[in-house]
C-alpha cells in the first residue's frame, strides 16, 4: 500500500480542496481536517462508482450514499456542487441563515439521503436501505462512510452484526481511518486496532487501501463485493487535514471557527505548496 502521508494530489483533488477552503471561508467555520481526509474517498465514489442522476436526485435506480460522519460535509458539498445536485452559489452561503447547507448534511439537500451529524446513525439507516433494495430486488447498492472516532459508538457494531448476519452484498462501509479524533489520536482515546480483524469477525469482506490513492480506491470499489455473500468494509488509511502541511494530523484543525480571509489565503497557499 502506498503511503497516505507522502502521496501527492492531482489537479482534481487540489481543485476540490480549493472549493472546500472557499466554502469554509464563506461560513467562517467548519470541520477542516475531517473534510480533507475524505476528499479522495468521495471523489472516487462520485466520479467512478455511484450510479446517480443529479437532475433526479430521487431516481429509484440510484445507489445510496450516506456520509455518516456528517461533520465531513464540506467535502460532500464540494462534490454535490461539482456534480450538479446543488448550485455552486449555495456553497458561498454555507452556515448562513438563508443557506441550504449547514454544518452537518440534512436530507432536504438534493443528493443527501439522510441527516447525519450525531455519530453512529448513518450505518443503520443505510443498512435499512440495503435491506430494502434486496426486498425489492432493485439492484441498488448502499455506501456509508463512517469515521474512526465514530467507530467508538456501539450502534456501529450493532449495525455491523446485523449486516453480517444478513450477508448484504450490496452494502459497503468505508472507514475514513485518519487515526485522529477530537481529543487526540485514536490509539490514545479509544484504540480500534486490530480494525481489519474486527470487521472480518463481524462477517465483512475487508479491503485496506490508501484513502488518498485514487487508483487503489477505484480498484477496490470497482470490485465489490470484496467477498461473495458478504458486506464489504473498506478501511481507508487517510491523513487528517491531507494536503495542508500545517494542518495534517494537527488536532487544532479538527474544527475551526472565526476563519477569516487571511486564513483562507494561508490555506490556499499551503495547498499549492507555497
Amino acid at each position, binding site marked *: 500500500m502506498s503511503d497516505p502521508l507522502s502521496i501527492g494530489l492531482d489537479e482534481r483533488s487540489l481543485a476540490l480542496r480549493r472549493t472546500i477552503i472557499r466554502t469554509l471561508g464563506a461560513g467562517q467555520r467548519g470541520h477542516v481536517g475531517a473534510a480533507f481526509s475524505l476528499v479522495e474517498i468521495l471523489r472516487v465514489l462520485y466520479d467512478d462508482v455511484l450510479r446517480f442522476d443529479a437532475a433526479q436526485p430521487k431516481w429509484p435506480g440510484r445507489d445510496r450514499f450516506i456520509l455518516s460522519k456528517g461533520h465531513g460535509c464540506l467535502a460532500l458539498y464540494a462534490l454535490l456542487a461539482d456534480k450538479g445536485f446543488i448550485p455552486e452559489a449555495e456553497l458561498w452561503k454555507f452556515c448562513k441563515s438563508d443557506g441550504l447547507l449547514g454544518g452537518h448534511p440534512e436530507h432536504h439537500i438534493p443528493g443527501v439521503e439522510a441527516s447525519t451529524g450525531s455519530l453512529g*446513525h448513518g450505518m*443503520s439507516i443505510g443498512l435499512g436501505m440495503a435491506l*430494502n433494495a434486496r426486498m425489492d430486488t432493485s439492484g441498488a447498492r448502499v455506501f456509508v462512510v463512517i469515521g474512526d472516532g465514530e467507530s467508538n459508538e456501539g450502534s456501529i457494531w450493532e449495525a455491523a452484526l*446485523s449486516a453480517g448476519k444478513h450477508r448484504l452484498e450490496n452494502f459497503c462501509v468505508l472507514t475514513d481511518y485518519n487515526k485522529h479524533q477530537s481529543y487526540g489520536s485514536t490509539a490514545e482515546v479509544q484504540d480500534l486496532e486490530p480494525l481489519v480483524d474486527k470487521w472480518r469477525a463481524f462477517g465483512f469482506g475487508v479491503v485496506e487501501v490508501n484513502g488518498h490513492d485514487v487508483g487503489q480506491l477505484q480498484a477496490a470499489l470497482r470490485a465489490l463485493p470484496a467477498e461473495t455473500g458478504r458486506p464489504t468494509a473498506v478501511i481507508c488509511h487517510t491523513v487528517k487535514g491531507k494536503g495542508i502541511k500545517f494542518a495534517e494530523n494537527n488536532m487544532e484543525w479538527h474544527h475551526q471557527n472565526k476563519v477569516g480571509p487571511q486564513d483562507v489565503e494561508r490555506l490556499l497557499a499551503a495547498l499549492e505548496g507555497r
Partner: protein
Amino acid sequence: MRKTSLDLVYQLAKSDERIVFIGSDLGVGTLAEFSREIPGRFLMEGVSEMNIVGMAAGLALEGKIVYVNTIATFLTRRCFEQNVLDLGLHNVPVRLISNGGGVVYAPLGPTHLAIDDLAIMRSIPNMAIVAPCDAEEMKRLIPQTVDYPGPMYIRLGKGGDPVVSSPALPFQIGKAIPMATGDDALLVTTGITAKIALEAATALGSQGIGCTVLHMHTVKPLDLEALLAHAGRVKAVVTIEEHTVIGGLGGAVAEVLAERAFEPVKRFKRIGIEDVFPHGYGSQASMMEHCGITVERTIATVQDLLAPRTS
C-alpha cells in the same frame, strides 16, 4: 392487546407489500406465521434497539411502513436519539409497538417499568402517541396506522385487559372519545386508566356528582378541541395515567389548561406515579394500588376538588 396488534400487522402485511416487521429478541414463536409466510419482510434483529430503529428509518425512507416491537423501556430510553433523529427528524412512517407500558412488568422491577415513555416520546417533534384502552380498541387502531403520516408510538397494556371501549363510539387517531358525560368534573385518561375513570364516574354519579370521562387514546397530537370543550363545562379536571405525573398526559393537559386560563380557574389534579422509582414488585394491579392510581383515589380527588375552598 399485544397479540391483537401483532396479528393485525401480519394480516395487513399479507396484502400490503409496504409493511415490514422488525422485532428485537421477542418470545419464541412470536408471529410464527408471518415469519413463515412472508420471511422477506419479517426481521428479528436481536437485542440492539439503536440499530433496529435506524434500520427501520432506512426502510421507511425507501417507502416501507415499518412496525417495530419490543419492551417499552428499551424502545424509548435505549434508542432515544434514534427515535428523535432517525424517526422524528426524517418524519418517517415507523410504528413503535411497545410492550408493557406503565407498570405491567411490576414483577421484574424498575428496569422494566415504563413510567416515563409518554413523556419521552411526547418531546419528539412529529411523533404521534397512541395508548388504546383494550384489545378491541387496538383492532380499530391498527388499520388506521398504515397510512398515518410520520412516526408513531403505540403503547400496549398487559393483555387480557377488561374491555371498556365500545364499537358504537367511533375511533379516529387524534380524536378523544367521551365515554361518559357529566357537568361537574372532567376525568381525562389514556390507555387502561379509562376503566378507573369510568368506575369512579359511576360511583360519583351515585353521589350526585356528574363526571365526563374523556378517553385521550391519542396523547399526541392532543385533541385540544375536545379537551377545551369538555373542560369548559366543569369545575374540576383530573387526569389519570399509568405514568409519572411529569410530562405525560397530566403534563399535556396541565399545559393546555394553564395557557387557556379559564375564569374561574379549573381545579386540577394529576393522578399518576409521583416523581420516584416505584419500589417493590407484585403485580401490575398491586403496583397501581401502591402508586395510588385507583378508583378510590380518583373519587376522593374529585370530591376534594369540588369541595368549597376554605381559604
